[in-house]
């Protein structure tokens, strides 16, 4: 579960911001709220804690928020309903916190417009890494470039909310988090050569995979998974520069 990114230190401050980002923390368990708030503060975030949905709305009205950390199991209102309501009013990034490590919960949360999903128990490093990734993704064009949930390319279908890929005959092709992120990066820049450095940067937006592997290995694995008897995977290697997705992408 723990992602360990070597570049992460407690003194880390989010890039591209002059003031510290403000995190609205919605958590009903008092000690966990305090501990999470402390961990965030120690890493340079401004924290606005809230124990209930009512407190959350009050804080939400009070001032600008950069990110909401939302516990899915709140007394009274469910975090899922809250997420829906927030999404009707704002596109502020949301990270779900849940005690259920279920794939279903993750999918439901992501489909409702949450940006990431954090399973309890989590450590400081993972918490900060996820927040940092979501905030960074918030300022890249990638997030805005994915308005729909599904896309089709070269006969294959991608479901972005469920992070699933389906083959030409409808079978699910399992991908790791890093492979999916890489594929998503290709899909947002079809028919264009993407430099290796840019790919690394784009794919790092989401920390879903803990291992440290080079982009070339990732591309070769993705290529192998997408190749079948009839045709090769639609990736072209541009020697010395990077890679290109040689297929048009239809958003569904």
């Amino acid at each position, binding site marked *: *579960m723990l992602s360990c990114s070597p570049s992460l230190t407690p003194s880390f401050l989010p890039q591209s911001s002059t003031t510290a980002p403000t995190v609205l923390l919605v958590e009903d368990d008092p000690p966990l709220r305090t501990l999470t708030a402390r*961990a965030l503060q120690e890493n340079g975030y401004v924290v606005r804690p809230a124990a209930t949905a009512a407190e959350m709305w009050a804080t939400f009205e009070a001032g600008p928020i950069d990110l909401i950390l939302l516990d899915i199991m709140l007394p009274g209102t469910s975090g899922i309903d809250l997420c829906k309501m927030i999404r009707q009013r704002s596109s502020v990034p949301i990270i779900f916190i849940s005690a259920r490590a279920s794939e279903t919960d993750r999918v439901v949360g992501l489909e409702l417009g949450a940006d990431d999903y954090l399973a309890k128990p989590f450590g400081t490093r993972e918490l900060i890494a996820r927040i940092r990734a979501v905030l960074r993704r918030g300022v890249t064009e990638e997030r805005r470039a994915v308005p729909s949930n599904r896309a089709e390319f070269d006969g294959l279908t991608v479901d972005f909310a469920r992070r699933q890929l389906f083959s030409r005959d409808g079978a699910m092709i399992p991908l790791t988090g890093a492979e999916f992120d890489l594929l998503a990066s290709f899909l947002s820049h079809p028919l264009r050569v993407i430099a290796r450095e840019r790919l690394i940067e784009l794919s790092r937006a989401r920390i879903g995979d803990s291992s440290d592997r080079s982009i070339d290995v990732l591309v070769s694995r993705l290529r192998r*998974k997408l190749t079948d008897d009839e045709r090769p995977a639609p990736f072209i290697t541009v020697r010395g520069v990077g890679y290109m997705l040689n297929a048009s992408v239809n958003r569904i």
Partner: protein
Amino acid sequence: MVARPSPGLIGRIVGIILLTVMLEFVVSTLLYERAGEFSIKEDEARRLAEHLVIVQRLVDERPPTERPAIASYLSTDRYKVEWQRSAPDRHMLSAELRQMRDQVVEWEPALASAGLQLQLASPVSNDKVAGQIILADGSWVHFKMYGLETGWGLKFNRIMLALIPAIAFAILGGLLVRQTLRPLRTLGHAIESMGQGERIVVREEGTNEVRHLIRAFNQMQDQISRMIADRTQALAAVGHDLRTPLARLQLRIDGSEDTDLRLSSERDIAEMEGMIASVLAYLGGDEDSDASMRVDLGVLVATLVDDMTDHGHRISYQGPDHLIAMVRPNGFKRAITNLIENAIHYGEDVRVGLASEPDRIGLHVEDNGPGIPEESLLDVLEPFVRLDAARSRNTKGLGLGLAIVSRMVEREAGTLTLTNRAEGGLRAEIALPHPRSAKPAPRQQ
């Protein structure tokens, strides 16, 4: 369901027995009626007629004191003659042989006035005919004839004619009883499938007792599944709730300066989280909607193997790049992950293989570890089973790893087999039905 009045199981069976007995009775009676039409060969009838006339005359001539003697004198191997003062007792069940009598009387009409009667000597013996004639003074001559040659195989036909209806009615009775017990059989099937974790509501039908039984079973089934659901939910809730204090612990020790303490506590937390995750996986509490779909198993296995390679383990995959199977992706991934982690834990060199065979999909994970003692190969598939400390395969956790695999594979209608390899180490093999041959509902009968 409207309660239709019903005579009850016992009533039904008694009714069936009564019906068959009555039919048997009616048919047998008709048969005995037909016995009157049995005939014998012409010369046999003439011989009998002559003999009877002689007997009648000779006995009639003698005074009553000499009659028993002359009667016994006139008896031969085939004809037995007795004189009696009164009418002889007639066997209750012996059938009247009218046709035969008419044949005899035709040869010697005098016998008609002597009140000749012929019967089968008994219902069982077939070639024995009994009869009597009345003498002028009202006394009787009783005679029996053996070894009778009947016109048409009286013996065989009588047996057959008695047996055929009996067999037919036994079959009819059996069918009726079977029909009556049919709801019970349905119930039996339902109970079997319930044992496999499937829930079937049985339609209430049949007799009162059976309907009552089915209603009780349906209610019991509801109660059991509710009870299991309650317990599962309670356990899952405990599991989920434990994660909050674990998260607190994790955050608290993250702030600790003591590296040793932090690392060892992190290990403990990871272990506890592992236990919770395995219990939840075993209970199915974390994945409530893992729907079956077509999954590229080749890619799935290769992905897991790649992941382990990236973590520095010696593991290889041999099999096709693509192989489609019908599985629940999350549960099945968990099963393969457990097998691979198990193999990595006990061996240094792990081989994973996948193959599409004519009648199944075979997946195996082999390690070069110590294996499992032969006598424990089945035990380790049970939940919460851990081998003795010295050779334990599950040193950490709750002993659910292989039980989860077993359960997930069972859900896919597959089989899991553990064997010790001849060259050392364990081989775990999963056999799945081919998607081509797999029915949509594999457990349907």
